[in-house]
């Protein structure tokens, strides 16, 4: 029986590349593609793929939030997160969300097949940097107790994270309500709860928070980027 894989990335050219890469492997098939996290969750619910590959930076619902929802619904769900950055925070959030694989987009052609093979054998697959971080965290806990714990972000629900992304993408409470199939009043309640929990007074604060915490990703024109950075 073939291994069924669901791919989610907002760029079709990337999905084409991922499909070409994975379909070349005997015994694997792409059972569905999705262009954002919301569509990925919907299709995963219908098709029950063996492995889900999620880009982090997607509109409407990003890959980390989608991972969290998929693994909450089914703790056995095998998710590989694809990302353009392996910053500490993205790694921590991916692990916390329940991802079992972590692959940098720049290394996908080299690592993705190995990652899928690992998850197929019920193992995990991480980049060397993620492995180092997991090991460092494990050793720190062993030696220092909780002193080395990173500062905790305010506890937000999965729904609140979804609302933050949509608001930061410029949607009004009414539009948020429409996307999430809620009443406008409920969307406004989520919005005010978020502002209270985070201590914010403006949408500007929320957008900055969403960018800093990789809830949304912004395009930076080349002339403002550090030399050598890639996107």
């Amino acid at each position, binding site marked *: 029986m073939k291994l069924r894989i669901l791919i989610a990335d*907002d760029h079709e*050219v990337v999905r*084409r*590349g991922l499909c070409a890469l994975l379909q070349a492997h005997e015994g694997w098939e792409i059972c569905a593609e999705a262009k954002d996290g919301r569509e990925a969750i919907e299709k995963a619910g219908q098709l029950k793929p063996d492995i889900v590959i999620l880009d982090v930076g997607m509109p409407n619902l990003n890959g980390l939030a989608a991972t969290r929802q998929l693994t909450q619904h089914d703790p056995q769900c095998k998710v590989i997160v694809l990302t353009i950055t392996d910053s500490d925070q993205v790694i921590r959030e991916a692990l916390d969300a329940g991802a079992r694989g972590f692959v940098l987009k720049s290394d996908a052609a080299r690592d993705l097949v190995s990652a899928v093979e690992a998850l197929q054998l019920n193992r995990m697959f991480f980049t060397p940097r993620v492995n180092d971080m997991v090991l460092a965290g494990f050793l720190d806990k062993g030696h220092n107790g909780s002193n080395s714990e990173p500062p905790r972000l305010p506890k937000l629900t999965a729904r609140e994270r979804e609302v933050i992304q949509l608001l930061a993408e410029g949607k009004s409470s009414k539009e948020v309500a429409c996307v999430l199939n809620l009443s406008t009043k409920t969307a406004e309640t989520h919005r005010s709860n978020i502002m209270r929990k985070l201590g914010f007074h403006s949408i500007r604060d929320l957008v900055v928070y969403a960018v800093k915490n990789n809830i949304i990703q912004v395009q930076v024109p080349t002339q403002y*980027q550090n030399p050598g950075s*890639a996107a």
Partner: protein
Amino acid sequence: MTVRILVVDDHPVVRHGLRTLLGGNPNWEIVDEAADGIEAVAKAANLKPDVVVLDITMPNMSGLEACRLIRKKAPASEILIVTQHDSPHMMREAMEAGARGYVVKSNASRDLLAAVEAVSQHLPFTTLNV
């Protein structure tokens, strides 16, 4: 007559995707790939492709700088920018640098084939969402 294409992007998985999309036309041939601007300029000068499909944001040398140099070293090659930057400002910079076409990556599946077709005939092709 076969249109010879050089594909330039720093992400191999995107190059795979571009190859897959462009492979649908039997009259087009991917002559080579490059992973940054420096490699793109060298390969364009050497291979003289009909079309260079060029990303902007790349390490070592950006696509805009590569575009200017390719115009000098392979003036017959037309340059099609394929980028994530959905920005009129960036598009203007690219056209000023000598590109003949500009396609946003999120529209690549819709626009790429038409854009390559156009620039291979020395016609402009630009689209933006914003």
